[in-house]
């Protein structure tokens, strides 16, 4: 690890201010992603602002019947919350399908959203990677990698976003609340948090530098069934090759793109009477396939069909 200085933020405003004023500063919450990458010197912050103990770990009912989840609420706390389990079960299911019990105890809601890709070439510092070093090239393009994107990929980057939780949150139409560097709070759909790679895969979100995620807000209980399914190489403790969150008529896909993917075309096709297979045919018509990841088309199609059936039960 490269040397860095460390401070524990006293409140959210002070954290944002420190982030803006200190060169090379980063927030650290659970640390389970940032420290992993710092040990490999993929991340090299000069200063860490520990936001882990800010009083933003509560889960509260909102006036309109939704739920406001503080950004520091641990993944375990959210998955175990009685309201989440009864009203937003897809979120609980998605969280407990990710990582391990130890990691979920430490991981925060905000940190989970901002975790970086697990592309093996991103992790292998002996290989070129546009995400690590803009303009260096992408080793995954010539490499062997099953866990690459089939939707929204670019010639610069074919990595996928690994969060399970975020897929459920997109299907739930959640929004993100932040504190901006100018001290304002803003709120926007979580679906608009992450970017596609384009020519700048090192830019992963639409957050302003120094902006702090303070909460994730769930709208009132949606109509229709909910279900999360995840397909992976092992039964547990592995990231998704494909995952699906269904909430009523909404579908979000994980493991297929640089961001949690709202399957709007499939939703529209289903709404006008298509079968799940036909709907996924529409959704995946522009999929960019490689020898190693073409299996994701039938996998995602069958996963969506099964998840829709289960959600309807």
């Amino acid at each position, binding site marked *: *690890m490269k*040397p*860095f*200085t*460390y401070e*524990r933020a006293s409140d959210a405003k002070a954290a944002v201010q420190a982030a803006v004023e200190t060169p090379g500063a980063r927030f*650290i919450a*659970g*640390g*389970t992603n940032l*420290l*992993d990458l710092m*040990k490999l010197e993929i991340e090299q912050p000069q200063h*860490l602002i*520990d936001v*882990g103990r800010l009083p933003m770990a509560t889960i509260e009912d909102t006036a309109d019947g939704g739920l406001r989840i503080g950004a520091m609420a641990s993944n*375990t706390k959210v*998955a*175990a919350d009685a309201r989440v*389990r*009864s009203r937003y*079960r897809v979120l*609980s*299911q998605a969280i*407990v*399908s990710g*990582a*391990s*019990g*130890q*990691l979920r*105890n*430490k991981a925060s809601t905000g940190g989970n959203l901002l975790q970086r890709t697990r592309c093996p070439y991103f992790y292998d510092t002996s290989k070129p990677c546009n995400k690590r070093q803009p303009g260096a090239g992408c080793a995954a393009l010539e490499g062997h990698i099953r866990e690459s994107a089939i939707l929204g990929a670019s010639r610069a980057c074919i990595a996928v976003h690994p969060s399970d939780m975020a897929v459920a949150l997109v299907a739930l139409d959640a929004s993100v609340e932040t504190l901006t560097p100018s001290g304002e709070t803003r709120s926007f759909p979580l679906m608009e948090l992450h970017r596609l790679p384009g020519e700048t895969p090192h830019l992963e979100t639409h957050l302003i530098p120094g902006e702090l995620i303070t909460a994730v807000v769930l709208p009132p209980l949606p109509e229709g069934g909910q279900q999360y399914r995840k397909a992976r190489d*092992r*039964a*547990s*403790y592995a990231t998704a090759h494909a995952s699906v969150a269904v909430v009523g008529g909404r579908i979000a896909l994980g493991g297929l793109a640089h961001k949690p993917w709202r399957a709007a075309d499939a939703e529209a096709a289903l709404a006008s009477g298509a079968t799940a297979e036909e709907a996924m045919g529409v959704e995946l018509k522009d999929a960019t396939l490689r020898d190693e990841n073409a299996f994701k088309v039938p996998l995602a199609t069958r996963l969506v069909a099964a998840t829709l059936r289960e959600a309807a039960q």
Partner: protein
Amino acid sequence: MRTTITVNGEARSLDLDPRTTLLDFLREKVALTGTKKGCDHGQCGACTVLVNGVRINACLSLAVMHDGDEVTTIEGLGAPEALHPMQQAFLTHDAFQCGYCTPGQICSAVGVLAEIKADIPSHAGDVGAQARLTADEVRERMSGNICRCSAYPQIVDAILDAAGNLP
């Protein structure tokens, strides 16, 4: 950076390089080498300890993040002459070969039983229902602890036994 962490009931106050992980703090600074370093990247569970009663991977946390916390390691769970029931169950069921993963397995298992008691759901069950203690649940909840010697069947038996739940 001055940091005080209570380890197994004893307050330890040290001046630390912020880079010191909680794992290195335990092993290198307070010489409690029971907690093991396997992967150092959150992938194996060998470094599992209890922080304020909750299991985490000590390798993916900085010691300075734990100022004021209470940490329990394998040395704090029990002693050779007064074993913790989970330690005794691992012996009874021969739940290890080389033993390298064992301190992490035992701390994790103690955490798992507390999590089931606290009704924290898992991927093995219906998230809408009360958390239950079954072999499937134990396997899923312990998936963050890898055993290269593959003592898994005995580990599951030991945990069920320690919970008084062996069929």
